[in-house]
């Protein structure tokens, strides 16, 4: 049966009001923590390291008070893609990656395809790494308003302004992009309903029938693009009408100040990250 409730699946970019400790952290602290953990994430290839990092991510999600199952449901639309990538890694990467911390064992081989304990490890570790990034990014956007994220990015880029980095513009682009994700999800829901009302069948075709599903999408993509351009034009007019002339000399009504708890969180994350990075080659598996 068709389900048109798109917002149910868009968990990235959606802000949820709350008063948890994660909500109250300074947005700059949150972004710093995210960056540290993303760097850690890209370095660890072992089971142990990923279990540790994933546990930390889950702990952070639990601390934020946002429904864990709801956040997880955001992966659903990407699931077919994840499965395909996982299968490709499983069958074709057998020889490319020797397993970490184990003797290489080949379980099955047929022509170019093979399954080794290296490829199995790769699949599991990739999934865990994907989940970690997914949790971290969802967590940032669901506990921080887009304006605050933009403010944080801008303020963190400020030192680079001497090198002619357009900090304000970059943060503005980021904000607009994030802000429009739920708007387009909503618009897509409306258009999908309108097309279904005149005979389009979005429910048909299994999850893996890409061609059929892609063809159905044409009736959505064209109206969505038209809408996006229209909205962009409206936005330009609205900004112009409010005398937007770029970021130079702009002041803010809310000024953030880093508190002790913010530094504490960053410090703890940094210690965690450094420990994992230092010992990343010493884990048993």
């Amino acid at each position: 049966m068709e389900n048109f409730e798109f917002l149910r699946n868009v968990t990235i970019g959606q802000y949820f009001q709350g008063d948890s400790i994660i909500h109250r952290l300074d947005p700059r602290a949150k972004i710093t923590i995210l960056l540290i953990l993303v760097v850690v994430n890209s370095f660890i290839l072992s089971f142990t390291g990923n279990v540790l990092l994933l546990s930390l991510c889950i702990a952070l999600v639990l601390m934020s008070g946002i429904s864990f199952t709801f956040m997880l449901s955001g992966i659903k639309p990407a699931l077919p893609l994840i499965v395909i990538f996982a299968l490709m890694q499983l069958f074709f990467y057998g020889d490319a990656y020797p397993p970490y911390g184990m003797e290489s064992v080949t379980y099955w081989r047929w022509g170019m395809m093979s399954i080794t304990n290296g490829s199995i490890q790769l699949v599991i570790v990739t999934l865990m790494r994907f989940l970690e990034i997914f949790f971290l990014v969802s967590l940032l956007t669901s506990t921080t308003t887009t304006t605050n994220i933009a403010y944080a990015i801008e303020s963190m880029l400020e030192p680079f302004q001497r090198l002619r980095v357009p900090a304000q513009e970059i943060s503005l682009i980021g904000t607009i992009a994030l802000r429009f994700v739920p708007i387009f999800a909503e618009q897509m829901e409306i258009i999908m309903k309108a097309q279904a009302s005149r005979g389009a069948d979005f429910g048909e075709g299994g999850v893996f029938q890409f061609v059929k599903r892609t063809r159905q999408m044409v009736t959505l993509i064209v109206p969505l693009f038209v809408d996006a351009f229209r909205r962009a034009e409206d936005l330009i007019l609205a900004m112009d009408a409010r005398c937007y002339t770029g970021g130079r000399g702009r002041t803010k009504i809310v000024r953030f100040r880093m508190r002790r708890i913010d530094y504490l969180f960053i410090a703890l994350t940094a210690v965690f990250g450094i420990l994992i990075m230092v010992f990343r080659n010493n884990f048993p598996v």
Partner: protein
Amino acid sequence: MSTRGRVVIQVNDLHHTYLSGTPLEVKALKGVTMEVYEGEVVGIIGRTGAGKSTIVQHFNGLIRNRERGRVIVDGHDMADPALDVRAIRQKVGLVFQHPEQQLFERLVGDDIAFGPKKMGLPPEVRRERVRWAMEMVGLDFEKFKDRFTFSLSGGEMRKVAIAGVLALQPKVLILDESTTGIDPRGRKELLGRVLNLNREHGVTLVFVSSNMEEVASIADRIYVIDDGRTVMHGSTREVFAQPEALRRYGLGVPHVTTVAHQLSQDGVAIPRVPLTVAEAEEDIWKILSS
């Protein structure tokens, strides 16, 4: 006033919650009961967020009721998972607010033909359907069928979009705020055209609007929805005879009706509640000439 025919849509104590089980959960419907009879024009009014759109999306299966309540459309229980929803959508056409946003084909004719094509109709029949639908909304078939969709004016695009729904030849046509955002003349023309569909082609109309003048000029009966519940219903005249009650639900009455109420309070006895300027004119002439 139409003589009551068969019930085409029956709604009983309908409940609906959006995004249930998520942090964004919203209870939209908390007990809506209404009927739509074959061949009539039903108006649904209520303030923004009252649940009007949610109700009508149940009528063609865009939202399926999984909670309390029943929706029966043309004899089919909409909660039945085995129901052929697409067949229902051919019988019940739904036009949204700003329907011109749903256009996607390069040529006008192709866009209108999308529905009939999906129904699997042969090209000849499709062509006839498109011709009929375009005639119904007032677009010349020969002149417009090969025009580029996105080169049309806003009003023309809206006509094309409505024709796209009409090409399914639905028995029931739902207009969900479909007249907002076009100029008064365009509105009047559109209202006249859908009313013609009802009178000449027997299409049952469900008209959702927050413009009281429009509803008054077109509807036989009215349902007032507030906070997800049916709070008032009756013939258009009965409903608009109660301006105080309507005001309680954030709604008004047509301007001429307000004037008539005021006149009655000032001692000028007006025999009925006028709904349109023409009716008021008639009544006032009668009083003046007696």
